């Protein structure tokens, strides 16, 4: 009974927030509501026992996307003149999209309900093949082994986004140890937090990559945590040198993708199939790829944030 209460409250809160988001016209309010939505969704995922998804949602969906959206919003300039004029109109396009989404969701739910037996589904096949995957966490097994080309393409998308927004030619101008926003915002408490949080975040991120092979965790969560920490340190003016390292080591953003691609090519050459890891060393391959991906993705996400921030100054 109490379980249903919590799920019900979270569900009603999420739908209510989503509806509210459709009507909000103010950019800042939309972003704040979006972050709140991500936080509630995180609670729901962890309540449903999906640690991996909850971690990803908290770190990427709510945390890092929030920072990127706020950085993008701050370079949009004053949009308040649009307000009021259009706020009375119903967002028909968004409503139609929401209705279509609900219809698809209902359809999927109904067609899933027809499945006679859950044990014959994909989950069972993953469970059966798990010993061969090299890892113990079924989520990581799917992401890095059974369906690794999905993940490979996801990383490619992020590298493409970095190339489009920033790219290797986008270098910081001048010394960046004292960013302009640092003098405005950094107080004693925030600087102290940046200093203490940095080693802790490195520890937790490394642990997340390692933990991904056994239970909840993985490269994407670790990368988002690292990038978030880098942004925090940047905001409060604690120099960590990631920007400088990325400038000196140009391959940093693509190291993860490169290792992944090498693994794929290795599979073609020696196993006859794309991304087929050697059977006895799949585990080490996966850990190495995850570690490289975590570093690369963190660098990409941080450089994306910097590029968005910097663009504001050049306008």
């Amino acid at each position, binding site marked *: 009974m109490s379980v249903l209460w919590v799920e019900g409250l979270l569900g009603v809160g999420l739908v209510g927030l989503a509806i509210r988001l459709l009507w909000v016209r103010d950019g800042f309010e939309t972003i704040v509501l979006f972050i709140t939505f991500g936080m509630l969704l995180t609670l729901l995922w962890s309540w449903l026992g999906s640690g991996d998804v909850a971690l990803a949602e908290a770190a990427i969906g709510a945390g890092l996307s929030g920072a990127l959206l706020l950085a993008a919003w701050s370079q949009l300039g004053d949009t308040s003149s649009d307000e009021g004029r259009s706020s009375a109109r119903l967002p028909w396009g968004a409503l139609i999209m929401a209705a279509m989404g609900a219809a698809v969701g209902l359809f999927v739910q109904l067609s899933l309900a027809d499945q006679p037996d859950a044990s014959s589904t994909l989950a069972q096949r993953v469970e059966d093949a798990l010993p061969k995957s090299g890892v113990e966490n079924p989520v990581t097994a799917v992401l890095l082994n059974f369906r690794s080309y999905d993940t490979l393409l996801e990383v490619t998308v992020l590298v493409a986004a970095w190339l489009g927004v920033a790219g290797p030619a986008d270098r910081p101008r001048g010394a960046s140890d004292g960013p302009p926003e640092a003098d405005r*915002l*950094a*107080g004693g*408490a*925030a600087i102290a*937090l940046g200093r203490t*949080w940095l080693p802790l975040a490195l520890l937790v991120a490394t642990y997340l990559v390692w933990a991904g092979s056994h239970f909840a965790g993985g490269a994407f969560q670790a990368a988002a945590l690292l990038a978030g920490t880098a942004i925090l340190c940047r905001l*409060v003016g604690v120099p960590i040198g990631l920007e400088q390292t990325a400038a000196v080591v140009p391959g940093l953003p693509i190291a993860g993708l490169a290792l992944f691609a090498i693994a794929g090519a290795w599979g073609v050459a020696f196993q006859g199939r794309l991304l087929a890891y050697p059977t006895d060393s799949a585990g080490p391959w996966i850990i190495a790829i995850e570690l490289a991906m975590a570093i690369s993705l963190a660098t990409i996400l941080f450089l994306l944030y910097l590029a968005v921030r910097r663009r504001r100054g050049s306008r």
Partner: protein
Amino acid sequence: MSARELVSGLAAVSGVVFYCAGTLGLLRFPDLYTRLHALTKADNVGVGLLALSLAIVAETWSEIASLALLWLIAMAASAASAQVVARGARRSGLLPWQGPQP
């Protein structure tokens, strides 16, 4: 109900009371600085009491250690973010509330 559960329940209820007080302050206080004050101060006590409540009924030492770490991180984050927000507001020229205008 054991004495342990009773104390834990009392701590949880008091924590919720502090959270409610903080939220009430956020909604009703006159300006950003007083709202920040209500939010961070009351919520820090709230999160501490909730952590205490869960620690009392925790079964292992590692659970208690996790809760203590969680409490410390939450406090540090809220203290730092409150200062950042207040500083940003002060630098952009927002003056603190001076009491009800006559």
